[in-house]
């Protein structure tokens, strides 16, 4: 067992700070790495030490294994925490750390290799007796074989061109009598488009819920799960809101899926924190989707209901410590929801909106947690993810958590860049969400009401007009009286003496 004294965080943004916060609590020194675009980013200022590792594009910096290893060696770091994204699931990086004698805070490169490969991961899960989405193992070019497979899987199924893409050669089949015709249409369309009529067949999940289980496994073979996270509110296949417990979950299913997740971790001899993602249908059938061999963006909701600091667990497991708790000692208490605050324009197809943050007012008080990294005057770079902060609330019940989230989103004010805040506020007010009745189609299904123009009334409009008017008058008065004296930032509330001249 080796005590970690200095950690290099091979990441940026909120997750770099999240990791460093726990390091500071554990009295571990922190080392930041940064690209040229990130010299003024908060993780550089938060860390004890900071190393420049290259140009702004990730490929030159945050994906640059050589530069990161060099910084780790120069700083005498015992360990590297990869965060999420970037090199966090890169087996070559994990292997390189091992070769250099630096602890990689995460699983072995061997596990990452398996889980990074969809087919190998599927095989490993099948071997461990864990359900996967039923479908053909490879492509099928024979019609009879295809028919057999479809009957075996059961309707509805999705037929996809093996060489496909762009929706061509794709058919959803829901009724028995449509099977043959759909298969033929798909194959001929595939042939026309790609010159190849072989197809895949996969079970179609009608109302899919994206539910994942957090697991922890130490180097002594102990593994636990920390319950589920419901991640079905997605846009462009990216999660937007997560909550735990899942409104869909039953205690029986939770136990079953939790045990499955632990079995999956044990099957691959996992190490550290990981997440097993499942698809769950309305009949509560569940299927292994993939395993993320790292910390998830949405890990704080699990921390809130279980009281466990997952980053601390990662570090202690990397040090070789045994898990300090058993499955029985873990309990979900209350309800936690996370909203991702992105610099994006929800009214314009969630187009990213990098740029300079003018002002920020963050929510606070009972049941609120914020994991963010941007500050006033910070220029959100174009090179990286659009997520600028995570707002996590806790309530004794789901209803209270939603009420609290609405209050928190009301308090959250960011100007200068477009954000998802108001869109998230509308989701909280949507009936289907309030009732917990939603699947991954939720945003698409409610798009109209979520993006509908709000009527605020003439008075609010008039007040907005007045603010611009006052500013204009003051600027004019400054020009004419030639007053240009220095005024420190945020210096004072004005009583507008200038406009007396008008």
């Amino acid at each position, binding site marked *: 067992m080796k005590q970690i004294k200095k950690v290099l965080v091979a990441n940026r943004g909120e997750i770099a700070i999240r990791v460093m916060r726990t390091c500071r609590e554990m009295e571990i020194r922190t080392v930041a790495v940064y690209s040229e675009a990130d010299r003024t980013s908060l993780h550089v200022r938060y860390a004890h030490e900071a190393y420049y590792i290259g140009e702004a594009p990730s490929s030159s910096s945050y994906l640059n294994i050589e530069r990161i290893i060099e910084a780790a060696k120069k700083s005498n770091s015992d360990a590297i925490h990869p965060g999420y994204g970037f090199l966090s699931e890169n087996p070559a990086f994990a292997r390189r750390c091992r070769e250099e004698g630096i602890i990689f805070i995460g699983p072995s490169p061997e596990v990452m290799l398996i889980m990074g490969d969809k087919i190998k991961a599927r095989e490993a899960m099948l071997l461990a007796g864990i359900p996967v989405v039923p479908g053909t193992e490879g492509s099928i070019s024979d019609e009879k074989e295809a028919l057999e497979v479809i009957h075996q899987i059961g309707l509805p199924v999705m037929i996809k061109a093996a060489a496909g893409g762009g929706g061509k050669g794709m058919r959803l089949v829901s009724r028995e009598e449509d099977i043959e015709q759909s298969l033929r249409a798909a194959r001929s369309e595939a042939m026309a488009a790609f010159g190849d009529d072989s197809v895949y067949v996969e079970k179609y999940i009608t109302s899919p819920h994206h539910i994942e289980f957090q697991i922890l496994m130490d180097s002594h073979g102990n593994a636990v799960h920390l319950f589920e996270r419901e991640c079905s509110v997605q846009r462009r296949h990216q999660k937007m809101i997560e909550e735990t417990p899942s409104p869909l979950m039953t205690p029986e299913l939770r136990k079953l899926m939790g045990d499955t997740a632990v079995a999956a971790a044990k099957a691959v001899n996992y190490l550290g924190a990981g997440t097993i993602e499942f698809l769950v249908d309305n009949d509560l059938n569940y299927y292994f989707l993939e395993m993320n061999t790292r910390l998830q963006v949405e890990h704080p909701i699990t921390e809130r209901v279980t009281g466990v600091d997952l980053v601390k667990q990662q570090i202690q497991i990397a040090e070789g410590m045994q898990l300090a708790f058993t499955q029985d000692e873990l309990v979900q208490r209350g309800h936690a929801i996370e909203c991702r605050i992105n*610099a994006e324009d929800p009214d*314009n197809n969630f*187009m*990213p*909106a*990098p*740029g300079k943050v*003018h*002002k920020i007012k963050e929510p606070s008080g009972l049941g609120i947690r914020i994991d963010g990294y941007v500050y006033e005057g910070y220029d959100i770079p*174009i*090179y*990286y*993810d*659009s997520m600028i902060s995570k707002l996590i609330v806790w309530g004794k019940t789901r209803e209270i958590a939603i009420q609290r989230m609405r209050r928190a989103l*009301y308090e959250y*004010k960011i*100007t*200068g860049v477009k954000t998802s805040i*108001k869109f998230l506020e509308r989701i909280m007010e949507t009936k289907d969400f309030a009732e917990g009745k939603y699947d991954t189609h939720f945003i698409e299904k409610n798009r109209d009401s979520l993006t509908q123009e*709000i009527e*605020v009334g*003439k*008075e*609010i*409009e*008039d*007040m*907005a*007009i*007045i*603010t*611009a*008017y*006052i*500013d*204009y*008058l003051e600027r004019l008065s400054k020009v004419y009286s030639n007053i240009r004296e220095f*005024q420190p*930032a*945020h*210096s*004072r*509330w*004005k*009583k*507008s*003496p200038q*406009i*007396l001249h*008008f």
Partner: protein
Amino acid sequence: MSVEIKLNNRYARVELLHQNNNLLKIKVDETVYDIDLMHTDDGTFSIIENNRSHDIELVPLDQPKKYLAYTLYKTFDVEIIDAETRYLLDRLGGHLDSDEKHISSPMPGKVVKVLVTEGQEVSKGQTVIILSAMKMESEYKSKVDGKVSKIHVTDGDTVEGNQVLIEIE
């Protein structure tokens, strides 16, 4: 002094009738408001009107006399239409900019690929340039039939928000 102000698509006439320090009497179109208005140097406004408390953030844009006003539920584009602006508006026949003939970047980003060359004929709806920002690529199309008169960027360039990329005539 009475000024015309545009809020989204609405035009309003505003006039300060009376001031006693932070207590103002202001007329917006036909409505007269008695308000208590305080603000910081950097545009945080607190207005108390008929005992209602309004918190508004006013953010000046790069163009002069244009603002974004963030109210509780909605953000407005606000523009001062004074004599100078009015003159420009009149001269341009009601259009301050010829948006349709310009392809501009809606946000800061990077040019992935310019798909046309100067002098090339393009048709309405044809994709002319691809930009990327924050791991997402977007295609930009010509809004008119015409000829590419000027290309201001090349592949790999970093661009600002609202920068003119390609002009079509």
